C-alpha cells in the first residue's frame, strides 16, 4: 500500500491506509538520524523551499533537518504578516517562487486554506506546515507515530486532548487522524475553547478534566494559544492550571501506562506541570525525534519515493 499524492495539505481527506503508509516509511527513516553519517541521497538534485509566513522555530528546523538528511537543496523564505500588510500578495509570491522551478514547497501561513490556495496554483508538491487554525498534518503524523510506537496500535485507544481545541490546528489534524485509525477521542477544555459543532468532528466533549482523563491511554496537552485569541477565553493562567492543567495528581485517573504528549512549545505550569513534562510518562522528546522522520517520509513520498 503506498501513498501517492501531489500535496499533503490536510489529514481530513486521507485514508487510514495513507496514514499507515506514511508512518511505515517514517519508521524506516528513523535510523538515518541515528547514524554517524546522517544523510541519504534520496532527494539529491531536488529543490525544497520552506515558505514560512508565520514565526516558527521547531517546525522549520525539523523540516530543514529532514530535507538536508535526504540531500535536498533547501532554501528558507521567511516573512511575517499577512499579504495585505506586506504589500506583495500570496499569489505573487507563489508565482515568483514557481518561476524558479522548485520541486517541493513547505508552507506555514497564518490563514486557514493558504496551503490549499498555493497547492492549487503550483505544479510543485506542497506540504502544509500549519495553516491558521485549519490543519498541521505533519504534527499529527508525528504524534500518531509516537502513539503507535508506545501503544502498538490505535484500535479502541482512549485519547484525550486537553486545551484550546477551537484554536488548534494540531488538535484538528490529530482528531481526523485518530478517528480514521480507530481511536476514541475526548476533548476537554473550558467551553470557550471547545469547537461549537463538535458533532462534525466525531468526538466526545467535556469541560470536566477528571471525566476526560478517566481511563485515558494517551493524553495530549495543547499549548494555550494566546496569540490566536481575540477575546479572553479563560480568566487567568492560575485558574486554567487549576481546572485544566495536567499534573501528577490528576494524571492518576488515566491508565497506569498512559503517555503524555505536547506539541510544544510548552507553557510550563499552565497546561502541564514541570514534574509531569519531565517525568517518565512524558514522550515529548520522542515526538520531536519522530518529527524529523515523519517529515523525511512526507518529503520523500511527495518527491516520488516509494512507500516502505
Amino acid at each position, binding site marked *: 500500500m503506498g501513498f501517492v499524492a501531489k500535496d499533503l495539505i490536510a489529514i*481530513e481527506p486521507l485514508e487510514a491506509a495513507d496514514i499507515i503508509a506514511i508512518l511505515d516509511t517514517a519508521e524506516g527513516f528513523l535510523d538515518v538520524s541515528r547514524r554517524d553519517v546522517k544523510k541519504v541521497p534520496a532527494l539529491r538534485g531536488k529543490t525544497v523551499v520552506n515558505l514560512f509566513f508565520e514565526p516558527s522555530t521547531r517546525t522549520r528546523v525539523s523540516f530543514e533537518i529532514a530535507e538536508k538528511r535526504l540531500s535536498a537543496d533547501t532554501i528558507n523564505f521567511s516573512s511575517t504578516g*499577512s*499579504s*495585505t500588510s506586506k504589500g506583495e*500578495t*500570496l*499569489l505573487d509570491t507563489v508565482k515568483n517562487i514557481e518561476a524558479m522551478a522548485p520541486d517541493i514547497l513547505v508552507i506555514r*501561513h497564518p*490563514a*486557514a*486554506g*493558504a496551503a*490549499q*490556495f498555493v497547492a492549487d496554483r503550483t505544479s510543485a508538491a506542497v506540504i502544509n506546515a500549519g495553516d*491558521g*487554525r*485549519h*490543519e498541521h498534518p505533519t504534527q499529527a503524523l508525528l504524534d500518531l507515530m509516537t502513539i503507535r510506537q508506545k501503544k502498538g496500535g490505535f484500535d479502541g485507544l482512549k485519547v484525550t486532548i486537553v486545551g484550546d481545541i477551537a484554536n488548534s*490546528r494540531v488538535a*484538528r489534524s490529530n482528531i481526523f487522524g485518530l478517528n480514521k485509525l480507530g481511536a476514541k477521542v475526548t476533548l476537554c477544555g473550558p467551553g470557550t475553547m471547545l*469547537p*461549537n*459543532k*463538535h*458533532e*462534525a*468532528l466525531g468526538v466526545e466533549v467535556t469541560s470536566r478534566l477528571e471525566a476526560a482523563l478517566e481511563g485515558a491511554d494517551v493524553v495530549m496537552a495543547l499549548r494555550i494559544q494566546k496569540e490566536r485569541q*481575540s*477575546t479572553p477565553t479563560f480568566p487567568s493562567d492560575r485558574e486554567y492550571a487549576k481546572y485544566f492543567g495536567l499534573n501528577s495528581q490528576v494524571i492518576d485517573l488515566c491508565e497506569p501506562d498512559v503517555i503524555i504528549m505536547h506539541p510544544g512549545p510548552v507553557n510550563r505550569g499552565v497546561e502541564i506541570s514541570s514534574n509531569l513534562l519531565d517525568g517518565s510518562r512524558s514522550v515529548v522528546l520522542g515526538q520531536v525525534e519522530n518529527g524529523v522522520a515523519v517529515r523525511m517520509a512526507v518529503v520523500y513520498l511527495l518527491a516520488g519515493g516509494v512507500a516502505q
Partner: protein
Amino acid sequence: MRLIVKGAHLVDPAQGIDGVRDVAVNGSTVIEVAENIETSSGDMVLDARGLHLFPGLIDIHVHFREPGQEYKETIASGSRAAAAGGFTAVAVMPNTNPVNDNAEITRFILEQAHVAGMCRVYPVGAISKELKGEDLASIGELADAGCIAVTDDGMPVSSSMLMRRGMEYAKGFNLTVISHCEDMSLAAGGCMNEGEVSALLGLPAIPAEAEEVMVARDIMLSRLTGARLHLAHLSTIGSVELLRLAKGYGLNVTGETAPHYFTLTDEKVRTFDAVYKMNPPLRSAHDMEAVRAGIQDGSLDAIATDHAPHAGDEKECEFEAAMNGVIGLETSLALALKLHFDHGVDLNRIVAALTCGPAAALGIPGGTLGPRKLADMTLVDMNEKWVVTPETFYSKARNCPFAGMELRGRVVRTITAGRTVYKDGSITAVNMGTAEILP
C-alpha cells in the same frame, strides 16, 4: 404612437394577473392591460407570444462602487448588468468613497445614472456620517436630493441609541431605514458561517446569532419608533422567524434575502475559494431551506442580489484576506426561477419578490403594470437553458459563485420607460434616455 406587447403570459402579482395579456404603452407609461387589445395601423406591435412578461424587475440592494472604486464597477457598467439581468430599477448602497452621506454625492450618482444609466438608479443614503456609526448623516438633505432610504450597509450601526435616532429622524422624512443586521462583536471578524464546516476548516466563524440578535434589536427599535424598517440580506432560520414575528405584531417591517442564500451553503467554503465569501456568510442547509420557505410564504418581501463587484486579486488570495461579496444581477432571475422549477416555489411569489415586494418595501414606483404605471417590463423565455459564464457578463467584475451552473429561464428583453434597453443578449443603447422604442 402606442407600443403593444402582444400575447405574452403576464405574471403581475400586485394585480393578481397570471395569464396571457396584451399591454399597451404610451411613451413611458402603461395605458392598458387586457386580454386582447385591438391594434391600429399607427401602433408598434411587439409579438411576445410564447414568452413570459413580468413587471420590470427591481433590485433594492446593489453596490455600483461609484464614486471611488470605479475599477470594480461603475454606474454605467453596473446598470448594464442590471438591464441584462432583466432589472429596470436598482437601489445603490451608500458605501462609496466618499460615502453617500450628503446631497452632493446623491446628486452625483443621479447625474451619472442620467448620463450612463441603463435602468432607474435609486440612491440610498447613509444613516451616519461616513458610516462611522457616530453622528447622523444629513438625512433630510439626502431625502431632498433623491435618496429613497437610508442605511449603514456594510458597517452595521452598533449603537442602539444611534439606530433609534436614525429611525426617528428618517421617519419624519418618510424614508425607510435599511438595516445590515450584524453584531460586530459577536461576529468577531469571522469570515464564514459558524457550524459543522467551520469546525472542520478552522476558519474564524460568524454564528447565525450575530445576525439574529441585531434583527431582533432592530425590530424592537422599529416598534419603539414606528419607523419603516427593511432588513437586508437575511440568511438564517432565526432571522426569517423573527421577521414573521414582526409582521405578526403588525409592525412596518420588511425583509429581503439574496439568491446565494437560497442556492448555496457553507459546504462550498471547503474549497477555500473566496468566490464563496460574502457577509452574511453562506449558511447551513437548514438555513437555506428556511429562506426558501420564507419566499414561498411571503415572509420575505424581496429577493435582492447584494451585487458586490470586486477586482480579481481582491478574491484570489487567502480566504480570510479576501473581500466580502459576490455579483448577482445577471443571474438573480434565473436562480429565483430555479426555486420554482426545482423546488416548487410558486412563480407568483418569486415574481412578487422581484417586483412589487421590493417596490413596496422602499416605497418606490414600479413593480406592477397597471394603467398609468411605469412602462418597465421584463420579457423572459421560461424554457431557455443557459450556462452561467461570468466572462460574458456586462458587470466589470467576475466574482460570481454560480459559474458553470446550468440555469433555466432567460431574459430576452428589458424595457425601461417604454424603451428597449436590452434585447437578445445585447444592450441596445448608450443610456436609458436614448434607448429606442422597439417592436
